[in-house]
Structures are given as C-alpha cells and as structure tokens.
C-alpha cells in the first residue's frame, strides 16, 4: 500500500483523511451507544435501521471497513519506513524533552485499538453477519438491546473495553489535532480547532467508557 502512494506528503494526507473519516464514524457510533443508556426502544430502532438499511449495509459499511484497513495498513507501512530512516539508534534519546508520549507512540496505541477491534468484531460484527447473511435468521427489531446487555455482563469484558478506550483517547489526543496540520490547515482558527480536537479525544472515549460501565452495573 506504501507503493500506491509514493510521496511522503501524499501518505501523510491520506493518513489524516482516513483518520478524520474514522473520527466522524466514532461520533456516530457513540451517539447510538448513548441512546442505550436512556431508551432501549430508541437503541433498538436505530440499531435495526443501521443493521437493515441497504445503503448502510452495502455502501457505508464496506467504505468503513476499507477506511479502517487503510488507516492500519498505512500506519504500519509508515512505521516501518520511519524505522528504516534511522538505522543506528541513539545511545541516549530524550524524546520526552521535545514531544508528547502520545505523539511518539501512535503505533502502540494503534495496536491496542487494533486488538480491541478484533474483540469487538468477535463480539458484535461477526455474530451480526452470521445472523443476517449465513443463518438468514428472521429479523427481530427488539433483539439488539438484549444482545448489547449480554455482552457487558462480564466484568473482564467490560474492563477490556474500558482499557481500550483509554488507548483510543491517547491515540486521538495526538491524531485528531495532528490531522489538521497534515492536510495543511494552519491558520487563525488552528488554536480553536486543536482545542476542539483535544476535547473530543477525551469526551468521546470517556462517553464510551461511561456507557459500558453503566450497562455493566445496571444490568
């Protein structure tokens, strides 16, 4: 994939745009999750729509999967290229003196998120695909909420979700604001945009964590 986009700036812009796309997806996902805390009916209705609407299933879902795969594969390609750019390491390296831990360790926070996605697919996406396209089970618009509760019964599972969202916050803390710089957005609005991105990187993962804990504790 690194060969497809040859220039370093093109790769950087592609990483930023795919990251921004995933940020929008996160917001949409969180909005639906949040409804589960307030109303099982609304959650079921929204999940039924997302799970059965042909546009969502056959257009948006493949685009999302492509976006996720692209972001991860390009991330690994860039990491390998960057490692090659400094073959001999420093005996002493003081990265903390000039940059944040989050910015230097995007690959590690990304790997945790990738592992989480594996678990998330195992929990929700694969059973959903089997239900609809393998078993051809009859659609029950009220099944989504009980399935959600079932997943958050285990404290270990809930804990893994919480830890993963902490790493998502760390990843977004650098990645979201950094994407503005990558696409060349640096002007009088940059300070406000960065503040918004930093706030988003805390609020949204924290929201996911709260929803997971509430579902676990109240049921």
């Amino acid at each position, binding site marked *: 994939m690194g060969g497809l986009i*040859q*220039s*370093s*700036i*093109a*790769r*950087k*812009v592609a990483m930023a745009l795919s990251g921004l796309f995933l940020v929008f997806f996160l917001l949409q996902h969180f909005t639906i999750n949040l409804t589960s805390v307030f109303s099982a009916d609304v959650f079921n209705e929204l999940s039924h729509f997302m799970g059965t609407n042909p546009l969502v299933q056959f257009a948006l879902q493949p685009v999302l999967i492509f976006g996720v795969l692209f972001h991860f594969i390009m991330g690994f390609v*860039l990491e390998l*290229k*960057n490692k*090659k*750019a*400094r*073959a*001999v*390491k*420093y*005996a*002493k*390296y*003081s*990265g903390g*003196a*000039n*940059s*944040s831990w989050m*910015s*230097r360790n*995007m690959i590690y926070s990304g790997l945790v998120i990738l592992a989480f996605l594996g678990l998330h697919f195992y929990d929700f996406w694969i059973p959903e695909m089997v239900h609809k396209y393998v078993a051809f089970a009859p659609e029950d618009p009220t099944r989504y909420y009980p399935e959600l509760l079932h997943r958050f019964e285990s404290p270990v599972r809930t804990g893994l979700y919480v830890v993963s969202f902490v790493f998502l916050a760390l990843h977004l803390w*650098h990645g979201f604001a*950094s994407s503005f*710089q*990558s*696409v*060349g*957005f*640096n002007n009088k609005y940059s300070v406000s945009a960065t503040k918004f991105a930093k706030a988003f990187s805390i609020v949204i993962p924290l929201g996911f964590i709260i929803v997971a804990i509430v579902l676990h504790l109240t049921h």
Partner: protein
Amino acid sequence: MNLTLKIWRQKDANSKGAIVDYQVQGIEGDMSFLEMLDVLNEQLITKGEEPVVFDHDCREGICGACSLQINGEPHGPDRLVTTCQLHMRKFNDGDTIYIEPFRAKAFPVVKDLMVDRSAFDRIQHAGGYISVNTSGNTIDANAIPVNKQDADDAFSAATCIGCGACVAACKNASAMLFTSAKVSQFALLPQGQVEATDRVLAMVNQMDEEGFGNCTNTGACEIECPKGISLENIARMNREYVKASMKG
C-alpha cells in the same frame, strides 16, 4: 567542573563505531560546548591519541555547521541555540554527557561526530531558488509590494541555517521542517510564484529520495530548532504540495 563524556567514536564511514568514555577536568561555565571539546582534544593530542572529529565553522550560531546530539537532544538542552552557542554553565560538576552524531540514514557518519549533510544541499538544488536574469537588468526586490505579514513569515522561514537538528530530533528522521522552510521562503513571496509548482514537487521528491522518514507531527523539530522555525511551514508545504499535485 569535571565531566564524564560518553562520545561516539567511529574511524570512518565504513567502520563500526562505539561510545567511548572520557574524563575532562577544569571546564568553566563560560566556555562553549565546542570549547569544552577543544579542551578534550588538547588533552588527547598531548597524550598522543586521535582527537575527536566534529563539525564547526563560525562558532556564532549562523553557519549551521556544528551539530551534535547532546544528552539525547540536538544542540543540547538549551533552546534556540546551536551547539557552539551552548554554554557549559548549563551542566553541573560531575555530570555525564552523551555526545553523538546526528543520526539519520540520509546523514551518514563521516568520522566520529561529523556527518554528511549534503542531502540537504541536494534538496535545495532541486528547487530551493528563484531563476533571475542577472545580466544587468535585475529589479530591486523592494520595488515589488509585499504584504508585511508574508514578508515577515518568509524571512522567518529563511532564517533556517540547515543544521539538520530537525532531522536529528525527529523520531522518524524526517526532513520536513527544513524542506518546508526552504519551500515557504519563496511560496510567500511574489518572486517565488512563477516556479512554485515545480519547486515544491521537486524538493519533496528529492527529500523522499534521500531516505528521510515521514513526518508524524510530533513537533520535536520545532522545539529543537535553533532558529525557531515554525511547524506552520510544514502545513504550508503540505498545502503547496497538494495544490501543485492537482495542477500536475
């Protein structure tokens, strides 16, 4: 003050190097870092040992010749100074100081602490100039009106001395800050517009060919740059590049 120095020694480009320990005594706080190394080299020469090779020229922070990764930071722990402007008062008696060459695949070690930074020259040659007919009919640059902010930003970008600290500081050994400064100093001015498209494409292409890493916006380069070159230049270069790519 007395210091323990851990210095990278490497006989030549093809040899394997290693960190070697040295003791220096009688270092004064008012000495520059390079003067401290001069003291060490005097000691080594007196003992009949090979002195430590390092780059230096003007010793007043304007030529960009001195380099050195000092305790894990290019040009040492002070900000907005080059190694030659770094004073020993920034260190304490009994300190251990790591001194290494700027590390990057594109900056191969020549000997000890001296690296070959000609990759920067080649990036500059690829397009970091404007073509002007100088055969007696040049126009005074001041005759062309330039927005004050643009002029200031262009001048700030032009203060880059090409020392390579940005590459040395970057965890990816990226040369984006240097290249973007050299692109920006012309992109902001009317004189630079004629060749703007070719310039950014050629310079970025050369930067990639030299084997520098990719920028991941850690911001380390801006912090360590002795001239305070801003990350805004990288955003500007990204814009210029996308614009130029669309023009073809």
